[in-house]
């Protein structure tokens, strides 16, 4: 127990070290553009934590990101490279909004139904990629990516066509969903909605999920197809299932964003969360609590970065650069075998004696 704690603490310290290193390299690039890194970072920090408003915004942003990253982590644990979170998010949102706009059901039935629709939408989209992998050996990295594009155009088609708000004087968006369907806000005048509890709830569920038989099987799949089959687990079923769960969570993420923030469908609804979710999942070590922490960090980075761009001359692309650097350092850390180096040194020392 104590060992585990120390291990986690080490993990945390390392993560912090990585972030600091990335910020340092980022600083060099910022100075290159003739701006002051100090100003950039302080605006960024201030932009995320400088006011209640901004801090709330960080939490709002965190909701879909954390849920989506949890979805990503499910697939990645099984070494299934689902990078189609955006597409799954979109298709989930489309189905959920359809239910709320067109079903005419009372919210008591309609709301749960819309959540289910979001889950089904996400799961279908990723499950499809899983199915293609199983049936045709089509690599899921590519198919999920392509399905992203298809979902983006599908959404565009719908908001310009069949789902366009009939009273919206040809604006490419759907009508607003009725208030009863929306995720309640904490306080009016603030964007933070109850979705935050849903995100936290899913984090807790995922902590337990990895201890269930199903969680074990997904983890096992990541250890290799041969040992999975050998252990009596159907690889094909497991691939489709794992992909579906992964997309299901992305669908829920879409639901929280649409029903908690936007209240309607429009183009660009995912704001490119998919790639960031990959990063968050990775940075969180595919561990639910880790994902919660790194999700918070990245949300702050995004919100702070957006503020920085508004309030200074420094372009937003800096934020992307810093993000990229952080992952590169994470990769580097996992690749360099510190244990080996340490062992070598201690051996040498003891030999000398």
């Amino acid at each position, binding site marked *: 127990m104590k060992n585990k704690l120390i291990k986690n603490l080490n993990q945390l310290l390392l993560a912090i070290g990585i972030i600091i290193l990335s910020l340092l390299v980022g600083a060099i690039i910022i100075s290159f553009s003739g701006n002051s890194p100090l100003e950039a970072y302080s605006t960024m920090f201030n932009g995320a934590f400088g006011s209640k408003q901004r801090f709330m915004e960080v939490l709002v942003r965190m909701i879909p990101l954390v849920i989506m990253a949890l979805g990503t982590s499910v697939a990645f644990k099984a070494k299934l490279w689902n990078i189609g979170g955006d597409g799954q998010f979109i298709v989930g949102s489309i189905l959920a909004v359809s239910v709320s706009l067109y079903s005419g059901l009372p919210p008591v039935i309609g709301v749960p139904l819309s959540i289910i629709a979001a889950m089904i939408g996400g799961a279908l989209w990723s499950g499809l990629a899983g199915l293609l992998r199983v049936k045709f050996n089509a690599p899921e990295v590519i198919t999920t990516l392509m399905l992203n594009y298809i979902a983006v155009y599908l959404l565009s088609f719908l908001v310009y066509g069949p789902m366009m708000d009939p009273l919206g004087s040809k604006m490419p968006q759907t009508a607003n969903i009725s208030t009863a369907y929306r995720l309640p806000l904490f306080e009016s005048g603030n964007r933070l909605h109850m979705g935050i509890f849903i995100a936290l709830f899913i984090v807790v569920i995922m902590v337990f999920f990895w201890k*269930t038989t199903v969680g*074990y099987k997904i983890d096992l799949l990541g*250890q290799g197809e041969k*040992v999975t089959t050998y252990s009596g687990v159907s690889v094909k079923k497991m691939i489709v299932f794992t992909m579906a769960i992964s997309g299901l969570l992305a669908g829920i993420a879409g639901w929280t964003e649409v029903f908690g923030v936007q209240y309607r469908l429009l183009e660009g609804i995912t704001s490119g969360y998919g790639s960031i979710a990959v990063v968050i999942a990775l940075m969180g070590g595919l561990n639910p609590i880790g994902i919660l922490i790194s999700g918070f960090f990245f949300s702050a980075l995004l919100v702070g970065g957006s503020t920085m761009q508004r309030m200074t001359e420094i372009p937003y692309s800096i934020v992307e650069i810093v993000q990229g650097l952080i992952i590169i350092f994470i990769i580097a850390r996992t690749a360099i075998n510190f244990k080996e180096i340490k*062992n070598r040194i201690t051996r040498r020392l003891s030999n000398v004696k």
Partner: protein
Amino acid sequence: MLGELKNKHNAVEMHNIVKEFYDVRANDDVDFFVKNGSIHGLLGENGAGKTTLMNILFGIYHPEEGEIFINGEKQDISSPTKAISLGIGMVHQHFMLARPFSIVENVMLGRKSRKGILLDTKETAADLVALAEKYKMKIDPYAKVWQLSVGEQQRVEILTALYQGAEVLILDEPTAVLTPQEVEGLFETLREMKNDGKAIILITHKLEEILSIVDEVTVLRDGSMIGHVEVNENTTKSELTKMMVGRDVLFNFNKACIKTGKEKLVIKDLKVLNDKNFLALDGFSLDIHSGEILGLAGVDGNGQKELCEAITGIRPIEAGEVKLDTINIENKPPIVAINKGISHIPEDRHITGLALGWSLKKNLILKTFKDNTKFGLVDEKKIEKRWKSAQVDYDIKANSGEDSAKDLSGGNQQKVILARELGSHPVILIANQPTRGLDIGATEYVRQKIIDAKGDGAGVLLVSADLEEILQLSDRIAVIYDGKIMGILPCGSNVKNIGELMMGKKLEVEENEK
């Protein structure tokens, strides 16, 4: 004492070689000398450091300490390229061939082309055929490697080395996968090469081979050089064994050929495809009785792996039946075989038998997550308890159940698999090459556990390419060749007969019987 041997006539001289891996000293101050125009045996238990030493000579590893002289000149062999340019060739224990490539493409990989940057396919193919003829081999240079038998692949490896101009040829356990007859063919080639003045280094575990072909032998133990012997009529097996192990070893299982119990697993007319979609099993029939060890002898790649996988549900069956008692289990998902008490020690413990990245504890419950849960969650306490008892029962050397499976040595990894597969008291045990790559101690241990399982009433299918193992353990011996049973022999049959069957030759007695 050995330092005096240093002279211009030695093809290879390795002095004071030290090589470490993490916490293992694989070579500890080793001296090794090989004369031109001789066949030199390298002997030692598993893990003694033979392959490591040869990998150093071939430039794959760089030693921490030591010097190497080739034909009297000091060399720094920094890479295989350097080794090849010095006239050193190596045939690895696991073949180093690109399978979708043709033979000639594989050969060209390791050699400068005569046409500069262009491939000289035709010329190389012609040379290769000529070279093969010289050493009494036959090959089709345009055949793809995956179409070749193991023996043929080995020939390609040897030819490649020769073609690269090898004057020193290292062969790492070349005979492990060959039939006795194929071994004879190989030795013919080696003698031919020796007469050409080449130096040949032969790693083998088989002492008869050492005595029959080798001129000198060096013995390693625990990374150190133990001794160096010139082989002549007076050299004996027991002398070499003692050098190798440091004590006398006698496999001494109290085996009497058991009258077998009742039929448990019946396999009838099985047809199964291999990964390349060719028939690996073609009308295979066999039955296994409770309380017996049925040894299945055969050269690797004759359908053994496919058989084990078909029985356990891992591989689909095209035609035929597999019955456990009276219940048909063919083409059922693997979980069915597991639940019915069929245990399986797979050939490949790394990729199939273990989740290498997982802890040992979790590896123990790989097939039984469900039985180890409480309120739907995996029950850590229960697993810990299981691990504790398994560690004791199976003598697994590990710090704790939290260790990753990949951090264990091969022998201990195999013990973890045994603990899992035997811990469930199977009615049938499919053991595919259970002792491959294990040292004598571990081998002895595993074999004893298999015999214990039989005593427990399990029907054991022991698949092994090691005839000695088959002979020692089996109550009946079946021989597989090209996906069919060539014959079933009683316990105590002679090696030559089995060898003939393994080569696909029918025995006359058998012929008459049918």
